[in-house]
Each structure stands twice: as structure tokens, then as C-alpha cells.
């Protein structure tokens, strides 16, 4: 179809395009390779294949925004189709007589596969329509209706170029590209239809009906269509749409270790002649897999939607972190300002205040369709800030100092840890002195906080009533260190692990049970790296087993309660402990209603990652308050004479939500209870003052 001159121009342009594209991706890959060694990835081909399949079926985007995800799917399939379309279009241009309209009947070959060509033509034609619709929706969403989900809070640190609308420009370029490219391609086909409509090309035929066929038109449309492609591919490597290529790769190289296991503060893989300081100050202090994150992110802001800190109007946006990272890298590479890499992340990527707003709830990582881990970056930044002597919040500092001296964050003496147990009506075994089956790791809040101790005692009574052979570590227990590690105090975390491992070493037990999901998480996922080999269970699982084995009998069905359940981050999202609490509630016979944000999509109470230690409390509606409102909306008006309960399975939740019920003025409408309080009522175990003493 093309004239010889056109062919030469095309080939030269194609070579230039490939050259610029190669340079673009080489630059990106070089910059990714400067990152630190990442935790070892096993079976990379396998996980890339798995990621490829996930991308092909668009599985990971449907975790949120279902309708927009469906449109994204249309766009994705359209662009995949267009990869083949562009190929056949190039052949149409280069090979004389190569023409696929009308089932390829003008092709100068024998045995033309008409059926296949017609199918291809139909798919290409219909997909062109899909693409135009999808891109129009996205264009309208960004530029006409201006969906707020695509913007950042004013207090979020943004690269000046992002602030000046860099992302919108990228989006506009791609929107215009798709419209021009697809439109031109449809027209180029329409102009080819010299013999009237082709039933396998409905849209092109429709356009042909209006514009007719035209030899010149074919040339012009072809050049617009393929010219755009030659321009856009190198452009993509310099825009946020590196997403097209990097997101499947990133998904294939995503974190393989358990969610609850943080990457080490310094890489385990040593490189000769390199000394790594803990955590991250500069962008290349991050593991290379997390430098890659920036290029996979297309800035959809789903992470921002689910971020409790962002909800709380804190200056944190996980997506802004990724966006800023990519802009920083872009300025340092394509922009020719490598000196920008010497600027600390806290000035270029995320503000210190935002760093200290993260609750480490993992919602951002969980929801990310491309496998990014902004939360891990935040923890790494905290690690370095601590080592560099950055002035931290006084409340956090007090907690850490107390943890270092007392082994708990409440400035209580070690000997007071077991005080509640000594007040019990039956002896609670000291696991460091006599062998037990279950070692109960109680945790700080459940051991010391007066508001939670009654619940702790009830757990002991239930265990006792079920004949469970259990003991505690008394003064030998130290804080497990989950949140210590997540505020970035790696040295203190290691110290606490050593103290607890020493206490475990002194004791004889078969398995560990915890009441605190935070302790549960680190004991289960991180202590094995320090030599722990015990099975760790959350008490909801233990309670369920005791009931199923007949050790506890449900005597009273609690049909007088209407309840909802809050999944604690470190039990649910981190460790998949969704079923045991729900099963327990079912066994208790309560009326159960599920909040809209449940299980994987549960909304953090706002206490995790050291937030509960903060001395300063920010203004605005707190996540826990929002959650209580969500529960009340879920209950609606129809509770009748039933008592409405908000059920928790985490000592921190007990505190956060009891408080939130008061501060939202909902006392009397909803009551916060630990699940064990329901079990106690259902199995008929009561506090001794109103009941027969429980046989020891």
C-alpha cells in the first residue's frame, strides 16, 4: 500500500521509535537495579506466569471499584487486540496487496483462512468501539466530572510537577492517543471498503457509509494511526503509563513472604564492600522491587481510598508516595538531575508527618492491583529516621523507652505483668516454673490496662472451665515487638525477641495462644526467623476448637443480641483469621450483620503501627469513630428490643472503640464487647462474685 518513499520514512521512524523506547526502558531498568537487594524471590518464572494470568483476566483490579474495573478490562482487552491490529496494519502498509477487508479475499495468496480473518476483523472492529467508549469514560471521569478519588489532599507532599498537573497531562496524552489512533485505524479500514459494507466490520462499514472509500484517505488514516503508535511507545516509558509494561512484571515480582513478615532493615543478601545502614533515607536505599513499584503505579489512588490515615485527614497518601518516587527518579534520569537522588525521601517523596501517620494496616498493599508495597517503604523510612536521631513524637519515645527498660510500653514494672493472674479465684500456672500445654502470650494491653483486664480474666476463666492446660510467663513476658518493629525500632524489636525467646527457652509448652492479634502476627510470622518453632494460635481459634471438641458447651443462645464484627488488621487482613470469630458468633446464636467493610477490606481502628502511642492527637473524625458510625448504619433501625453489640477480638480495639462510642455520643445505642464476653455468657461462665466459684 505504501509508496517506496513512505516505506523508507516509516522504517526510519520505526527505528527511531524503537531506539527511544529501548533507551527509555534501559534507563528505567538501570535505575531499578540501583535499589538494594530484595528478599529472595522463589520460582520467578512461575510467579511471572501467575501474574501474567492474573493480568490477562484482570483479577487483581476487581478488589475495588467494580464498574471502573470492568471498563479498565475493556480498555485492556482493546489494547491487547490493538497490539495485533498494529502488526497487521504495518503489514498492510509494507506488503503490496496485503489487505484483510472482506475476509482477505483480495489477498494474493491461495488458501486464505477467511474464517480466521473475519473473526479477527470482527474482534478488532468491536474492540475499537470498546476502546473508544472506555477511554471516553476515563476522560470524562478525570476532566469533566473531576472524580475526587483522582486528587490528593492539600496537605500531602507532592512533587512540584505532579502539583502542576503532570499526571493529568500524561492522561490527556494517552486519551488523545487512543481516540486518534483508534479513530484513525477505523477510518483507514472504512476507506478500504471499496465494495460497500463488510458484515464483519460493523463500525468501519458504518463509517464507510458516511465517508465512502478513498485511496488518499487510507494513506492519511494509516499514517495517523501508526504514527501515533511510534510516538506513544517511547513516550510511555517516560510517563505514568510505564504501568502498561511494568505492572505485570511488578505483580510477578511482588512480595512472596507472609504479609505479616516485614522485610529486614538491612538486606540479608550481603554485597561485598557495601555497608548498608538500616532502612531508607534515599530512594535507592529501598529494595529494587520497591523502586520498581513506582513504575508499575498508574496512580489510580485505590490505596488512598482505603487508607485510614488519609481518611483521618493526615498528610499521608500511599499513592502520592509512589507518584513522587517516579517523578524523583524521572527527574534524576530523563531530567538529567542525578543530584536529586541525594535528597532525603522525607523531602521528596513523603513528609515526616505522613511517615508517622501510617497505622501499618496493610490495606494499601492489599488493595493495590499491581502488587505495590508503599507501607514497606514507610517502615523503612521510619527505621532510618530513628537511627539518624530524628526527633520523634514524645508519646512514641516514652513508649519505646519504657519498652527498652520495662519490656512494656505502659511504664509498668515487669513484676506487675502477672498481677491480674494472682487475683484470680484459681491458680494460673507460671509456664517458666511448670510445664503447660498452651503458653498464653497475654500482651501489654491485656496485662496492664484496667479497662481490658476484666476481659483477660474472663479468657482465663473460659480456658480454665474448658480444662485447658495453660500458663503464662508472668514477669518474663516482654512485649512481642510487632508494633515496635513497625515504628522502625529494629534494634529494640530484636532485643524484645531475644527476651521472649529466652523466656520461651526457660519454659515447657507445646503451643502458643495469644489474645492480641499484633503479638500473634509477629510470633507467627517473624519469630520463626529468630528460632521460634511453636505453633501460634489466636484465642478465637482456640475457643472454637474447645467448643467443637465439646470441652465447652453452649448452654444459652444469645438471640437477644444483634451484633456486628470488626476484623482486626493483624488477625484478618494480615493472617486470614476471618472464619473463627464468625463461627463463634454463629454458635452463640446472636443475630449477625456484616458491615460493608469486612474481612480483607476491614477498616483499621487507627491504633496500629505505633499510632496508639502518639502523644499528639490530630483533629478530625478518627477512623474508629467512622467505624462505629458504619456499624450503626449497618444495624439500621430494626434492632427492636435487641441490644446492639460491636464485637472485637483485640485488646487495642476494645480501647479504641469504647472510646469512639463515647466520643461519637452513641452510648446506649451500641456497646463494644470482646467476643470472649459473649462466649462466657453462652457457656455460662460468670465472674465469681455473682456465680458459684469456678472449680479450679
Amino acid at each position, binding site marked *: 500500500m505504501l509508496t517506496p518513499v513512505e516505506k523508507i520514512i516509516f522504517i526510519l521512524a520505526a527505528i527511531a521509535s524503537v531506539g527511544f523506547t529501548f533507551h527509555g526502558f534501559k534507563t528505567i531498568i538501570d535505575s531499578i537495579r540501583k535499589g538494594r537487594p530484595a528478599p529472595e524471590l522463589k520460582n520467578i518464572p512461575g510467579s511471572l506466569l501467575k501474574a501474567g494470568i492474573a493480568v490477562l483476566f484482570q483479577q487483581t483490579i476487581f478488589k475495588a471499584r467494580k464498574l471502573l474495573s470492568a471498563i479498565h478490562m475493556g480498555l485492556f482487552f482493546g489494547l491487547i487486540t490493538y497490539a495485533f491490529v498494529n502488526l497487521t496494519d504495518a503489514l498492510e502498509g509494507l506488503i503490496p496487496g496485503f489487505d484483510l477487508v472482506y475476509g482477505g479475499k483480495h489477498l494474493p495468496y491461495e488458501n486464505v483462512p477467511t474464517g480466521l480473518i473475519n473473526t479477527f476483523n470482527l474482534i478488532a472492529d468491536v474492540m475499537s468501539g470498546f476502546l473508544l467508549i472506555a477511554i471516553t469514560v476515563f476522560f470524562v471521569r478525570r476532566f469533566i466530572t473531576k472524580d475526587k478519588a483522582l486528587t490528593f489532599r492539600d496537605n500531602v507532599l507532592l512533587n512540584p510537577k505532579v502539583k502542576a498537573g503532570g499526571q493529568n497531562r500524561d492522561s490527556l496524552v494517552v486519551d488523545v492517543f487512543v481516540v486518534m489512533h483508534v479513530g484513525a485505524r477505523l477510518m483507514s479500514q472504512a476507506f478500504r471498503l471499496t465494495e460497500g459494507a463488510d458484515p464483519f466490520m460493523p463500525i468501519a462499514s458504518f463509517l464507510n457509509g458516511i465517508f465512502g472509500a478513498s485511496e488518499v484517505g487510507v494513506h492519511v488514516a494509516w499514517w495517523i494511526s501508526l504514527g501515533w503508535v511510534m510516538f506513544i511507545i517511547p513516550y510511555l516509558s517516560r510517563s505514568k503509563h510505564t504501568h502498561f509494561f511494568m505492572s505485570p512484571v511488578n505483580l510477578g515480582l511482588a512480595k512472596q513472604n507472609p504479609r505479616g513478615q516485614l522485610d529486614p532493615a538491612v538486606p540479608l543478601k550481603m554485597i561485598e564492600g557495601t555497608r548498608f545502614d538500616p532502612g531508607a533515607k534515599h530512594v535507592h536505599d529501598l529494595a529494587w522491587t520497591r523502586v520498581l513499584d513506582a513504575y508499575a503505579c498508574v496512580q489510580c489512588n485505590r490505596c488512598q481510598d482505603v487508607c485510614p490515615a488519609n481518611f483521618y485527614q493526615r498528610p499521608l497518601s500511599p499513592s502520592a508516595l509512589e507518584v513522587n518516587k517516579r517523578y524523583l527518579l524521572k527527574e534524576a534520569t530523563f531530567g538529567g538531575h542525578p543530584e536529586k537522588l541525594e535528597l532525603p525521601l522525607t523531602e521528596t517523596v513523603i513528609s515526616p508527618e505522613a511517615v508517622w501517620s501510617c497505622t501499618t494496616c496493610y490495606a494499601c498493599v492489599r488493595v493495590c492491583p499491581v502488587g505495590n508495597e508503599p507501607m514497606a517503604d514507610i517502615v523503612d523510612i521510619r527505621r532510618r529516621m530513628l*537511627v539518624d*536521631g530524628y526527633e520523634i513524637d514524645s508519646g512514641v519515645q516514652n513508649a519505646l523507652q519504657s519498652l527498652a*527498660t520495662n519490656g512494656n510500653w505502659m*511504664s509498668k514494672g515487669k*513484676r506487675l505483668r502477672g498481677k491480674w493472674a494472682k487475683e484470680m479465684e484459681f491458680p494460673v500456672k507460671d509456664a517458666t516454673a511448670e510445664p503447660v500445654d498452651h503458653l498464653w502470650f497475654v500482651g501489654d494491653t491485656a496485662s496492664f490496662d484496667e479497662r481490658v483486664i476484666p476481659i483477660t480474666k474472663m479468657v482465663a476463666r473460659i480456658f480454665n472451665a474448658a480444662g485447658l492446660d495453660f500458663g503464662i510467663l508472668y514477669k518474663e513476658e516482654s512485649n512481642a515487638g510487632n508494633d515496635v518493629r513497625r515504628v522502625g525500632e529494629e*534494634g529494640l524489636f530484636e532485643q524484645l525477641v531475644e527476651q521472649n525467646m529466652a523466656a520461651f527457652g526457660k519454659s515447657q509448652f507445646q503451643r502458643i495462644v495469644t489474645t492480641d492479634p499484633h503479638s500473634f502476627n509477629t510470633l507467627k510470622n517473624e519469630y520463626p526467623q529468630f528460632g521460634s518453632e511453636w505453633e501460634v494460635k489466636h484465642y478465637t481459634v482456640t475457643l472454637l476448637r474447645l467448643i467443637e471438641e465439646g470441652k465447652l458447651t453452649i448452654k444459652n443462645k444469645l438471640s437477644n443480641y444483634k451484633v456486628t464484627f470488626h476484623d482486626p488488621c493483624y488477625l484478618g487482613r494480615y493472617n486470614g483469621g476471618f472464619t473463627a470469630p464468625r463461627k463463634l458468633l454463629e454458635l452463640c446464636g446472636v443475630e449477625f450483620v456484616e458491615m460493608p467493610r469486612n474481612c480483607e477490606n476491614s477498616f483499621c481502628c487507627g491504633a496500629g503501627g505505633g499510632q496508639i502511642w502518639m502523644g499528639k492527637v490530630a483533629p478530625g473524625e478518627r477512623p474508629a469513630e467512622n467505624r462505629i458510625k458504619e456499624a450503626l448504619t449497618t444495624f439500621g433501625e430494626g434492632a427492636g428490643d435487641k441490644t446492639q453489640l460491636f464485637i472485637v477480638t483485640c485488646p487495642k480495639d476494645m480501647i479504641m472503640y469504647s472510646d469512639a462510642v463515647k466520643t461519637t455520643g452513641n452510648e446506649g445505642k451500641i456497646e463494644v464487647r470482646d467476643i470472649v464476653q459473649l462466649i462466657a455468657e453462652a457457656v455460662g461462665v460468670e465472674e465469681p462474685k455473682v456465680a458459684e466459684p469456678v472449680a479450679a
Partner: protein
Amino acid sequence: MNIVVAIKHIPSIADDLPVSGKNVDFDSVDFVLNEWDEHSIEQAVLIKEAVGGTVTVVGVDLIGELDNVLHLALAKGADKVVKITADDPAADSHMQAKWLAEAIKGMGANMVFAGVQASNDLDGQIGPMIAAYLDMPYIGGVSSVEANGDSATVNKEFAGGAGAKYSVSMPFVAGVQAAPKPPRYAPVSKVRQMAQTATIETVSPSGDASAGLAFKNMAPPVATGHAEMIEGSSKEVAAKIVELLKSKGLA
């Protein structure tokens, strides 16, 4: 600038304080660094960061566990640490002041800092006594120190929120009430690194130290009253308070 910080290891009140005989049951308590000493270390390190010099931290080792505190001081920026091995948990502020003064004497200090008080003896004596033994001027209730050449500008706090600015000639002893900034956090990794690498200079207690006071008796306080929580709506609470004030003849 040569700054010496005299510190005190004291029983922790995080636990219920056990009493045995006429004194604290020292076997059943943990020892911690006196809270005001954390401020004097911070003040010393701030001066060092501003004008240069060295910070030496010296303390009496009462129960053989002072090393942890000294490692912490090093992690916070002290250059040198010295412990006086007394091995007597009951040594009071008078005895400690004498030993500390003897140890500090040969150090050529421009400034000596001590916490203005400690929560065990609560007599604020260590600083003034060191000053007396070393024949240096003493200034207490200090909330900031700035070194300028041979003298220092010292802010001192008075009751009722009043304050005064002094120019003090070196050498002198200051009782530090608070550092201008909250004491910094020393990451545990750094403390542990100090524990592995740093050397602690050890000296024996010297000088004729004797306790100024003798214990007659020690007992936990007896609860003589308790708070009563008034419950109800704000109107009911207000009514009850009025009633209560009337019954006490106050309204």
C-alpha cells in the same frame, strides 16, 4: 569545652515499691537512671554539638548494673563514661556526692551538671555538695545553658513561672531542671553497639564518705481517704457539688 555529667541510678517506681526493714527492698526493685539526669545529659550533648568539646558521664554503680545506663549515655552522644564501683544500693546522696566529687576532681571540668534532684532522696543535694567539695559555684533549677568562652549564660527557673538569666564564670556546677529540648531517643541498635565496643573506666570510691541521715523507719503510705466519683447528668452533678460544698460549710 569539657563537660562532666554526674548521674544517679535509682530504684524504679514502675513497680510497687517493696519495703524491707528500714529501707527499700533493693533485691526486689529494678534500678533506672534518674529522670533529671536524662535532661543533664541532653543539655551537655547539646552544648557539645553547639560549641564542641567532650562530655564525660560519671555515676556510682550501686548494684553492678550501671553499665546499661552508661551505654545509653554513650549512644546519646557522651564521649567518655566512668563508673564508681560502690556496690552499696543504700548509699545516699551525701555519700554519692563525695565519691562523685573525688572522681570529677582530676577531670578538669569547665562545667559539671547534675540532675536538680532525684526521686529517691528528693533532697536536691548532690549538685550543691559536689560544688562544695570542688569549690565551685552552684546554680540550681537550670532550664538551659549556653557556653560562650569562659562563661555561660544560664537560665534558672523560679516558682510561679518566673525565670532569670545569669552569666556564670567557669568552672561551675549546675543542677539541671530541664534541657531546652526533650532528651533524645537512643536507638537500641546504637546502645547495643556501644555495649559491644565502648570501654567504661572504673574507679573505686574514694574519700571519707558518710551518710548525712539515718533511717528511723520506712513504710508505704497508708490510704486515708479516697476520691468519690459523682455520677449523673451535668445538672445532677452540679447539684451534688453544691450540696457537698454547703455541707462542708464552704458555700
